[in-house]
C-alpha cells in the first residue's frame, strides 16, 4: 500500500481538525461490569462510505456537554461502515458515555495517530499479549490480521484479566479460535473457570514462544508491560520484534495541546504505536 503523505498532509491542513463528525450510537455491548463497547455510525452517509482508518489509530469521542476523550479504534477497517471502541468507566466523559443509550448522538474526530506496521509483518508469526482494557487496540489489529489470514503465519493471543468476569470480547473468542490460538488467563478464577490462573507475564513464560520470525504485540497496564517485556527479552526477542501502543492524556489529538509528549515525541502524532526499539530512546516519562 502506498500513501502519498504529502498529498495527505495538504488535505489535512485544509481541514479544521477540531470539528467532530456527528455519529449515532448503533449498538452498545456490555462487556464487563465497568466496560462497554460502542458501535457508532456516521450520520453523513457519504462519510460512512469513505471513512477509513488503520489498525492502531485512535479517535476523539465527544459526549456534547460532558466533553471529549481519547479512545483507540477497537474495530478493524476490514469491516467497513462502522467503528467500535471500548470504554472503561473511569471519569466524567466515560461516565457520560456509559449513560448513553442506543440511538444517542456523539461527536467523532478520527482517525489520528500512526498504526501497526502490518505490511512489514507479512509472513511472520504474531503473538498478541494483552491485559485488561489493553485488549482494545489489539482487537483491531488481531481482527485485521485474521481478516487477512493468509498474509500471516501462526497467530496466537494471550489475554488476561483480573477475573473471568473482567474479560472483554467474549462473544468473539470462538471466532478467534477458528484460525488462531487463544490463551486466556485470570488473576483469580471462579468455580466455572477452567482456564489458566496466573499473571500474563508468567503465562507467557509457560507458553514460551520461540522468537524466530515472530512479532510480539503487547498492550495492557504498565506493570504488565514491564514484566512482559522482561520475559520476552529472556525468551530471546529483540526490541525491534516487540510493539506496543502508548497511552497518554490527550485533548487535541493533533500535536498542539501539548500534553502527550514524551520528550520530543508526541504520542498523538508520532504514536500511539511504538516498537520497543523506539521506546528505548524515549525519556522514562510515560
Amino acid at each position, binding site marked *: 500500500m502506498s500513501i502519498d503523505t504529502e498529498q495527505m498532509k495538504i488535505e489535512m491542513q485544509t481541514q479544521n481538525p*477540531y470539528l467532530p463528525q456527528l455519529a449515532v450510537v448503533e449498538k452498545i455491548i456490555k462487556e464487563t461490569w465497568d466496560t462497554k463497547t460502542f458501535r457508532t455510525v456516521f450520520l453523513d452517509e457519504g462519510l460512512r462510505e469513505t471513512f477509513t482508518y488503520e489498525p492502531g489509530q485512535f479517535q476523539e469521542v465527544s459526549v456534547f456537554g460532558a466533553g471529549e476523550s481519547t479512545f483507540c479504534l477497537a474495530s478493524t477497517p476490514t469491516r467497513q461502515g462502522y467503528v467500535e471502541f471500548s470504554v472503561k468507566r473511569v471519569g466524567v466523559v466515560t461516565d457520560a458515555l456509559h449513560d448513553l443509550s442506543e440511538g444517542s448522538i456523539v461527536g467523532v474526530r478520527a482517525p489520528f495517530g500512526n498504526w501497526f506496521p502490518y505490511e512489514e509483518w507479512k509472513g511472520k508469526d504474531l503473538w498478541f499479549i494483552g491485559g485488561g482494557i489493553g485488549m482494545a487496540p489489539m482487537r483491531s489489529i488481531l481482527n485485521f490480521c485474521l481478516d487477512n489470514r493468509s498474509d500471516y503465519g501462526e497467530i496466537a493471543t494471550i489475554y488476561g484479566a483480573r477475573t473471568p468476569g473482567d474479560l472483554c470480547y467474549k462473544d468473539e473468542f470462538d471466532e478467534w479460535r477458528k484460525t488462531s490460538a487463544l490463551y486466556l488467563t485470570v488473576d483469580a478464577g471462579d468455580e466455572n473457570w477452567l482456564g489458566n490462573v496466573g499473571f500474563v507475564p508468567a503465562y507467557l513464560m509457560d507458553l514460551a514462544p520461540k522468537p524466530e520470525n515472530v512479532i510480539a504485540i503487547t498492550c495492557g497496564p504498565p506493570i504488565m508491560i514491564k514484566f512482559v517485556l522482561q520475559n520476552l527479552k529472556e525468551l530471546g526477542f529483540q526490541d525491534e520484534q516487540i510493539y506496543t501502543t502508548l497511552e497518554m492524556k490527550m485533548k487535541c489529538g493533533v500535536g498542539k495541546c501539548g500534553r502527550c509528549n514524551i520528550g520530543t515525541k508526541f504520542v498523538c502524532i508520532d504514536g500511539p504505536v511504538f516498537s520497543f526499539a523506539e521506546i528505548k530512546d524515549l525519556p522514562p516519562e510515560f
Partner: protein
Amino acid sequence: MADKVIAKTDLRKWLAGMAADHDVIAPIGREAGPATWKDINGTQDIDITANQMVMAAKEFLLPVHDVLFRFHTRKGEERLEVPDLTNKSTVMIGLRLCDVRAISVLDAVYYNQGPFRDAYYAARRDKLALVAAVCDDPRWSCFCTTVGDLKEWKLGADVLITDLGDKIYVQPVTEKGEGLLQGDFFSSPSEDDVRKKSEVWANLLALPKRPFAGKDISKIVSWDDPVWEEQARKCIGCGICTFMCPTCSCFDIQDETTGSVIERYRCRDTCQFSDFTMMGAGHNPRPEKKMRVRQRVLHKFKYQVEQFDLIGCTGCGRCVESCPVNIDIRGIVSHIAAEPL
C-alpha cells in the same frame, strides 16, 4: 523598499489610516498589571516604547477563551455551528523582537508541525501584520541576545519601528509591511535619522549576553540533574511562568452548556499543573513537581530545538519577572551549561 520617518505627532494619523481596513491592536497599559492588547483603531495614543510588561502576542493569536464550535442539541435539529474565521486583517503594533520570535515558534507548532494545521490560529495568522519596535530600554529580566540572533528574528516582522525621540524611524521588512506605510506624513530619513536608528539597534545588540549564550544544552542536559529537584522544592506549582510565556501555548478543551447550546472552547492549560497529564484512570506520567519543572525547561531548550531547530525561549524575561519564588530560567540553563549566571 525604502525606509521612512514619521513625526510622533502624526502617529495617530498613520494608525487611523491603517484602521480603515485593518483592526489595529496595540498594548494599552493601565496602572496595574501588564499592558494588554487592545483594539485601538487609531483613536488612542500609544506609547510604543513604554517599558511596561506587555502580555504576550499569543493573547491575540490564541485567545484565553477560544470558541471552537457550538453544538445545538435540540432533538432532530442537532448541528454544529462553527465561528466565522474570516476575520478582518489585523495589525499588531508595538511588539518587541522577542514577541516576533515567539510568533515564529508558535507558527512552528500551530502552522507547520505534523500533518495538521490549527484552523483557528491559521485564520488569525494569515491576516496578521507585525509592526515591531526595536527596544531602547530593556527590562531587568531581558536576555534575548543570549538565546538568539536579533538580526534573524527581525525578519519575522513586517515593519520595524525605532523611537528617535520626536519621530519614529520606520523600516518595511516585507511587502505586506510596505503596504502599511501609506500617507503623506511619511518622509525620507535624514542622515542623522539613519545614524540615530543604527545607534539604537547597535545598543540593543550590545545587550550583555549571559555566559551560556550559544551553548546548545539540548545535547548535554542530564535527565537526572539535581537542579530539577532543587528548583521543584521552591516551585509552588502555579502556572505563571507558562501563562506569561510568549511561546507556551498548551491548552485544554472544555464544554459549557447554556440552555440547549453547548459551547466547546479551548483555554490555557499548563504543564505545571499535575492535572495536565493525569489520566482518567489515575495514571500520571508526570506526577512529581520536578518532572513538571523539567518539562518546561526542556520543552524550550531541548524538545523544540530537536523538533524545529529553534530554541523555544525568546529571552523575554516574563517568567523570570513574574515567578513568585524567583525561579530563574536563566539560572537553570546556566547551571546545565556549567557557566556562571
